[in-house]
Protein backbone atom coordinates (compact mmCIF):
# COMPACT_ATOMS: atom_id res chain seq x y z
CA UNK A 1 0.00 0.00 0.00
CA UNK A 2 1.50 3.32 -1.08
CA UNK A 3 1.34 6.39 1.14
CA UNK A 4 -0.42 9.59 0.05
CA UNK A 5 2.94 11.23 -0.47
CA UNK A 6 4.25 8.36 -2.59
CA UNK A 7 1.12 8.47 -4.76
CA UNK A 8 1.37 12.24 -5.15
CA UNK A 9 5.04 11.93 -6.17
CA UNK A 10 4.22 9.12 -8.58
CA UNK A 11 1.61 11.36 -10.20
CA UNK A 12 4.14 14.17 -10.51
CA UNK A 13 6.70 11.84 -12.08
CA UNK A 14 4.19 10.28 -14.47
CA UNK A 15 3.12 13.60 -15.94
CA UNK A 16 6.47 15.41 -15.97
CA UNK A 17 7.66 14.13 -19.37
CA UNK A 18 4.64 15.86 -20.90
CA UNK A 19 5.90 19.19 -19.59
CA UNK A 20 8.39 19.08 -22.44
CA UNK A 21 5.55 20.06 -24.75
CA UNK A 22 3.26 21.81 -22.26
CA UNK A 23 5.79 24.46 -21.21
CA UNK A 24 6.65 25.78 -24.70
CA UNK A 25 2.95 25.67 -25.57
CA UNK A 26 2.11 27.68 -22.43
CA UNK A 27 4.74 30.28 -23.33
CA UNK A 28 3.27 30.56 -26.83
CA UNK A 29 -0.27 30.87 -25.39
CA UNK A 30 0.75 33.70 -23.06
CA UNK A 31 2.65 35.53 -25.77
CA UNK A 32 -0.16 35.24 -28.33
CA UNK A 33 -2.66 36.70 -25.86
CA UNK A 34 -0.56 39.82 -25.39
CA UNK A 35 0.26 40.05 -29.12
CA UNK A 36 -3.45 40.03 -29.91
CA UNK A 37 -3.66 43.18 -27.82
CA UNK A 38 -5.37 41.91 -24.69
CA UNK A 39 -4.72 43.23 -21.18
CA UNK A 40 -1.90 41.05 -19.74
CA UNK A 41 -3.79 40.60 -16.46
CA UNK A 42 -6.77 39.31 -18.36
CA UNK A 43 -4.62 36.91 -20.37
CA UNK A 44 -3.05 35.55 -17.20
CA UNK A 45 -6.35 35.35 -15.30
CA UNK A 46 -7.50 32.84 -17.89
CA UNK A 47 -4.76 30.44 -16.82
CA UNK A 48 -6.31 30.40 -13.35
CA UNK A 49 -10.01 30.77 -14.16
CA UNK A 50 -10.21 28.53 -17.24
CA UNK A 51 -6.95 26.56 -16.87
CA UNK A 52 -7.55 24.92 -20.22
CA UNK A 53 -4.67 25.00 -22.72
CA UNK A 54 -5.86 25.43 -26.26
CA UNK A 55 -9.30 26.71 -25.25
CA UNK A 56 -7.64 29.84 -23.84
CA UNK A 57 -6.00 30.69 -27.18
CA UNK A 58 -9.17 29.95 -29.12
CA UNK A 59 -11.13 32.26 -26.82
CA UNK A 60 -8.77 35.19 -27.40
CA UNK A 61 -8.42 34.54 -31.12
CA UNK A 62 -12.18 34.50 -31.55
CA UNK A 63 -12.66 37.74 -29.60
CA UNK A 64 -9.86 39.51 -31.44
CA UNK A 65 -11.24 38.26 -34.75
CA UNK A 66 -14.49 40.08 -33.99
CA UNK A 67 -16.58 37.16 -32.75
CA UNK A 68 -19.16 37.90 -30.06
CA UNK A 69 -18.50 36.95 -26.44
CA UNK A 70 -21.30 34.44 -26.72
CA UNK A 71 -19.51 32.62 -29.55
CA UNK A 72 -16.19 32.71 -27.67
CA UNK A 73 -17.69 31.41 -24.43
CA UNK A 74 -19.67 28.71 -26.21
CA UNK A 75 -16.55 27.55 -28.03
CA UNK A 76 -14.60 27.24 -24.77
CA UNK A 77 -17.45 25.23 -23.27
CA UNK A 78 -17.61 22.90 -26.27
CA UNK A 79 -13.83 22.44 -26.55
CA UNK A 80 -13.68 21.52 -22.87
CA UNK A 81 -16.78 19.32 -22.94
CA UNK A 82 -14.42 16.35 -23.51
CA UNK A 83 -13.87 16.60 -19.75
CA UNK A 84 -17.33 15.09 -19.32
CA UNK A 85 -15.87 11.89 -20.79
CA UNK A 86 -12.76 12.05 -18.61
CA UNK A 87 -14.95 12.61 -15.56
CA UNK A 88 -17.15 9.63 -16.41
CA UNK A 89 -14.03 7.43 -16.56
CA UNK A 90 -12.48 8.84 -13.39
CA UNK A 91 -15.69 8.79 -11.35
CA UNK A 92 -15.30 5.06 -10.80
CA UNK A 93 -12.04 5.60 -8.94
CA UNK A 94 -13.07 8.72 -7.06
CA UNK A 95 -16.50 7.66 -5.86
CA UNK A 96 -15.46 7.11 -2.25
CA UNK A 97 -14.33 10.71 -1.84
CA UNK A 98 -16.48 13.26 -0.06
CA UNK A 99 -18.47 15.67 -2.22
CA UNK A 100 -16.21 18.59 -1.25
CA UNK A 101 -13.07 16.69 -2.21
CA UNK A 102 -14.65 15.78 -5.54
CA UNK A 103 -15.42 19.46 -6.14
CA UNK A 104 -11.83 20.46 -5.37
CA UNK A 105 -10.13 17.69 -7.30
CA UNK A 106 -12.22 18.38 -10.42
CA UNK A 107 -10.45 21.70 -10.99
CA UNK A 108 -7.14 19.91 -11.50
CA UNK A 109 -8.20 17.42 -14.16
CA UNK A 110 -6.29 17.99 -17.43
CA UNK A 111 -5.84 15.85 -20.57
CA UNK A 112 -2.42 14.44 -19.78
CA UNK A 113 -3.21 14.09 -16.06
CA UNK A 114 -6.41 12.21 -16.85
CA UNK A 115 -4.61 9.79 -19.15
CA UNK A 116 -1.60 9.14 -16.91
CA UNK A 117 -3.69 8.80 -13.75
CA UNK A 118 -6.19 6.59 -15.54
CA UNK A 119 -3.38 4.27 -16.65
CA UNK A 120 -2.11 4.15 -13.07
CA UNK A 121 -5.59 3.59 -11.63
CA UNK A 122 -6.25 0.64 -13.93
CA UNK A 123 -3.11 -1.11 -12.69
CA UNK A 124 -3.54 -0.25 -9.01
CA UNK A 125 -7.25 -0.57 -8.33
CA UNK A 126 -6.77 -1.70 -4.75
CA UNK A 127 -4.77 1.32 -3.57
CA UNK A 128 -6.62 3.30 -0.96
CA UNK A 129 -5.65 6.90 -1.69
CA UNK A 130 -5.61 6.72 -5.49
CA UNK A 131 -6.81 10.29 -5.86
CA UNK A 132 -3.45 11.60 -4.65
CA UNK A 133 -2.01 10.42 -7.95
CA UNK A 134 -4.53 12.61 -9.78
CA UNK A 135 -3.72 15.53 -7.49
CA UNK A 136 -0.03 14.96 -8.29
CA UNK A 137 -0.56 15.08 -12.05
CA UNK A 138 -2.97 18.01 -11.79
CA UNK A 139 -0.81 20.16 -9.50
CA UNK A 140 2.30 19.59 -11.62
CA UNK A 141 0.39 20.68 -14.69
CA UNK A 142 -1.07 23.67 -12.84
CA UNK A 143 2.27 24.98 -11.62
CA UNK A 144 3.98 24.51 -15.00
CA UNK A 145 1.06 26.07 -16.86
CA UNK A 146 1.03 29.15 -14.60
CA UNK A 147 4.79 29.65 -14.92
CA UNK A 148 4.79 29.03 -18.68
CA UNK A 149 1.86 31.31 -19.58
CA UNK A 150 3.12 34.00 -17.21
CA UNK A 151 6.61 33.97 -18.76
CA UNK A 152 5.06 34.15 -22.23
CA UNK A 153 3.01 37.16 -21.14
CA UNK A 154 5.96 38.97 -19.53
CA UNK A 155 8.80 38.05 -21.87
CA UNK A 156 6.82 37.75 -25.09
CA UNK A 157 7.41 34.92 -27.48
CA UNK A 158 11.04 34.15 -26.63
CA UNK A 159 10.50 30.71 -28.10
CA UNK A 160 11.38 31.31 -31.79
CA UNK A 161 8.31 30.80 -33.94
CA UNK A 162 10.36 29.05 -36.64
CA UNK A 163 10.84 26.08 -34.31
CA UNK A 164 7.15 25.28 -34.69
CA UNK A 165 6.92 24.07 -31.11
CA UNK A 166 3.15 23.88 -31.32
CA UNK A 167 3.90 20.57 -33.02
CA UNK A 168 4.98 19.19 -29.63
CA UNK A 169 1.31 19.05 -28.61
CA UNK A 170 0.21 16.29 -31.03
CA UNK A 171 3.46 14.49 -30.18
CA UNK A 172 2.54 14.45 -26.49
CA UNK A 173 -0.81 12.88 -27.31
CA UNK A 174 0.79 10.40 -29.70
CA UNK A 175 2.98 9.29 -26.79
CA UNK A 176 -0.20 8.76 -24.73
CA UNK A 177 -2.11 6.57 -27.19
CA UNK A 178 0.74 4.87 -29.06
CA UNK A 179 0.79 1.72 -26.95
CA UNK A 180 -2.88 1.10 -27.70
CA UNK A 181 -1.96 0.65 -31.37
CA UNK A 182 -1.25 -2.94 -30.37
CA UNK A 183 -5.00 -3.55 -30.09
CA UNK A 184 -6.94 -3.62 -33.32
CA UNK A 185 -10.18 -2.45 -31.70
CA UNK A 186 -8.41 0.63 -30.33
CA UNK A 187 -6.82 1.30 -33.71
CA UNK A 188 -10.27 1.32 -35.33
CA UNK A 189 -11.61 3.68 -32.69
CA UNK A 190 -8.59 6.01 -33.08
CA UNK A 191 -8.85 6.15 -36.85
CA UNK A 192 -12.60 6.77 -36.64
CA UNK A 193 -12.01 9.66 -34.25
CA UNK A 194 -9.13 11.09 -36.28
CA UNK A 195 -10.91 10.97 -39.62
CA UNK A 196 -14.11 12.38 -38.09
CA UNK A 197 -12.13 15.26 -36.62
CA UNK A 198 -10.83 16.15 -40.09
CA UNK A 199 -14.26 15.72 -41.63
CA UNK A 200 -15.99 17.92 -39.05
CA UNK A 201 -13.13 20.36 -38.55
CA UNK A 202 -15.18 23.25 -39.90
CA UNK A 203 -18.24 22.51 -37.77
CA UNK A 204 -19.27 25.55 -35.71
CA UNK A 205 -17.80 26.30 -32.26
CA UNK A 206 -14.89 23.85 -32.73
CA UNK A 207 -17.42 21.12 -32.05
CA UNK A 208 -15.35 18.56 -33.97
CA UNK A 209 -13.52 18.06 -30.68
CA UNK A 210 -16.60 16.43 -29.12
CA UNK A 211 -18.43 15.20 -32.24
CA UNK A 212 -15.58 12.91 -33.27
CA UNK A 213 -15.16 11.24 -29.84
CA UNK A 214 -18.92 10.58 -29.76
CA UNK A 215 -18.75 8.93 -33.20
CA UNK A 216 -15.67 6.96 -32.13
CA UNK A 217 -17.34 5.78 -28.91
CA UNK A 218 -20.38 4.72 -30.91
CA UNK A 219 -18.06 2.63 -33.10
CA UNK A 220 -16.46 1.26 -29.92
CA UNK A 221 -19.86 0.12 -28.68
CA UNK A 222 -20.49 -1.62 -32.02
CA UNK A 223 -17.13 -3.38 -31.71
CA UNK A 224 -18.03 -4.53 -28.21
CA UNK A 225 -21.32 -5.89 -29.48
CA UNK A 226 -19.56 -7.83 -32.26
CA UNK A 227 -17.03 -9.23 -29.81
CA UNK A 228 -19.72 -10.99 -27.81
Amino acid at each position, binding site marked *: MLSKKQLFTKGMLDISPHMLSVIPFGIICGAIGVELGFNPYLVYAMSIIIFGGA*SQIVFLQLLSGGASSLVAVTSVGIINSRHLLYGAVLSEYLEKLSFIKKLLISYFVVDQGFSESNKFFKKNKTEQHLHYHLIGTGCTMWVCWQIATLSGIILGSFVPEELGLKFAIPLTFIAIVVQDLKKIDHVIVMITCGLSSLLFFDAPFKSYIIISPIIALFVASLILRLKK
Partner: protein
Amino acid sequence: MSWLSIIIAGILTYFTRMTMIALINRDMLGDRIKAVLEYVPSAVFPAIIFPAIFINDYGSFVEINDPKIFGAIVAIIVGYFSKNIIATIITGLISYWFLIFVIFN
Protein backbone atom coordinates in the same frame (compact mmCIF):
# COMPACT_ATOMS: atom_id res chain seq x y z
CA MET B 1 -17.04 42.57 -20.92
CA SER B 2 -14.03 40.36 -21.57
CA TRP B 3 -13.64 39.76 -17.85
CA LEU B 4 -17.24 38.68 -17.50
CA SER B 5 -16.96 36.28 -20.45
CA ILE B 6 -13.74 34.79 -19.07
CA ILE B 7 -15.46 34.13 -15.77
CA ILE B 8 -18.42 32.52 -17.51
CA ALA B 9 -16.07 30.45 -19.70
CA GLY B 10 -14.21 29.41 -16.54
CA ILE B 11 -17.41 28.36 -14.78
CA LEU B 12 -18.51 26.39 -17.85
CA THR B 13 -15.13 24.66 -18.03
CA TYR B 14 -15.23 23.86 -14.35
CA PHE B 15 -18.69 22.34 -14.75
CA THR B 16 -17.48 20.09 -17.56
CA ARG B 17 -14.73 18.86 -15.23
CA MET B 18 -16.86 18.52 -12.14
CA THR B 19 -20.21 17.22 -13.39
CA MET B 20 -19.33 13.58 -14.01
CA ILE B 21 -16.87 13.29 -11.12
CA ALA B 22 -19.15 14.75 -8.48
CA LEU B 23 -22.60 13.76 -9.64
CA ILE B 24 -22.17 10.28 -11.08
CA ASN B 25 -21.54 7.15 -9.10
CA ARG B 26 -20.68 3.69 -10.27
CA ASP B 27 -24.18 2.26 -9.93
CA MET B 28 -25.56 4.81 -12.38
CA LEU B 29 -23.38 3.44 -15.18
CA GLY B 30 -24.24 0.04 -16.60
CA ASP B 31 -21.63 -2.55 -17.55
CA ARG B 32 -21.97 -1.78 -21.21
CA ILE B 33 -21.30 1.93 -20.70
CA LYS B 34 -18.33 1.15 -18.48
CA ALA B 35 -16.91 -1.11 -21.17
CA VAL B 36 -17.32 1.63 -23.79
CA LEU B 37 -15.65 4.16 -21.47
CA GLU B 38 -12.50 2.01 -21.62
CA TYR B 39 -12.06 3.49 -25.09
CA VAL B 40 -12.21 7.14 -24.03
CA PRO B 41 -8.48 7.92 -24.50
CA SER B 42 -8.46 6.28 -27.94
CA ALA B 43 -11.72 8.03 -28.84
CA VAL B 44 -10.71 11.53 -27.70
CA PHE B 45 -7.01 12.17 -28.27
CA PRO B 46 -6.93 11.57 -32.04
CA ALA B 47 -9.30 14.56 -32.31
CA ILE B 48 -6.40 16.63 -30.96
CA ILE B 49 -3.67 14.78 -32.89
CA PHE B 50 -5.12 14.60 -36.42
CA PRO B 51 -6.06 18.27 -36.96
CA ALA B 52 -2.74 19.40 -35.43
CA ILE B 53 -0.88 17.34 -38.03
CA PHE B 54 -3.08 17.39 -41.12
CA ILE B 55 -4.56 20.89 -40.99
CA ASN B 56 -2.41 24.03 -41.19
CA ASP B 57 -2.82 27.40 -39.47
CA TYR B 58 -5.11 28.60 -42.25
CA GLY B 59 -7.57 25.74 -41.89
CA SER B 60 -6.71 23.80 -45.05
CA PHE B 61 -5.22 20.35 -45.48
CA VAL B 62 -1.43 20.04 -45.56
CA GLU B 63 0.48 18.49 -48.48
CA ILE B 64 1.23 14.79 -48.29
CA ASN B 65 4.96 15.55 -47.87
CA ASP B 66 4.40 17.93 -44.94
CA PRO B 67 7.21 17.71 -42.33
CA LYS B 68 4.61 17.24 -39.56
CA ILE B 69 3.41 14.00 -41.12
CA PHE B 70 6.96 12.71 -41.24
CA GLY B 71 7.64 13.84 -37.63
CA ALA B 72 4.46 12.12 -36.46
CA ILE B 73 5.39 8.84 -38.16
CA VAL B 74 8.84 8.90 -36.53
CA ALA B 75 7.24 9.66 -33.15
CA ILE B 76 4.78 6.79 -33.53
CA ILE B 77 7.53 4.29 -34.37
CA VAL B 78 9.86 5.49 -31.60
CA GLY B 79 7.02 5.70 -29.08
CA TYR B 80 5.73 2.25 -29.93
CA PHE B 81 9.06 0.54 -29.36
CA SER B 82 10.64 2.73 -26.66
CA LYS B 83 7.47 3.24 -24.56
CA ASN B 84 9.17 6.48 -23.56
CA ILE B 85 7.29 9.79 -23.66
CA ILE B 86 10.38 12.00 -23.79
CA ALA B 87 11.97 9.95 -26.59
CA THR B 88 8.70 10.14 -28.53
CA ILE B 89 8.42 13.92 -28.30
CA ILE B 90 12.15 14.63 -28.92
CA THR B 91 12.55 12.34 -31.94
CA GLY B 92 9.30 13.66 -33.43
CA LEU B 93 10.51 17.25 -33.05
CA ILE B 94 14.04 16.53 -34.28
CA SER B 95 12.87 14.74 -37.41
CA TYR B 96 10.43 17.61 -38.06
CA TRP B 97 13.23 20.16 -37.60
CA PHE B 98 15.55 18.10 -39.79
CA LEU B 99 13.07 18.40 -42.63
CA ILE B 100 12.25 22.08 -42.24
CA PHE B 101 15.79 23.31 -41.54
CA VAL B 102 17.99 20.91 -43.52
CA ILE B 103 16.00 19.33 -46.33
CA PHE B 104 13.41 21.96 -47.27
CA ASN B 105 15.63 24.91 -46.52
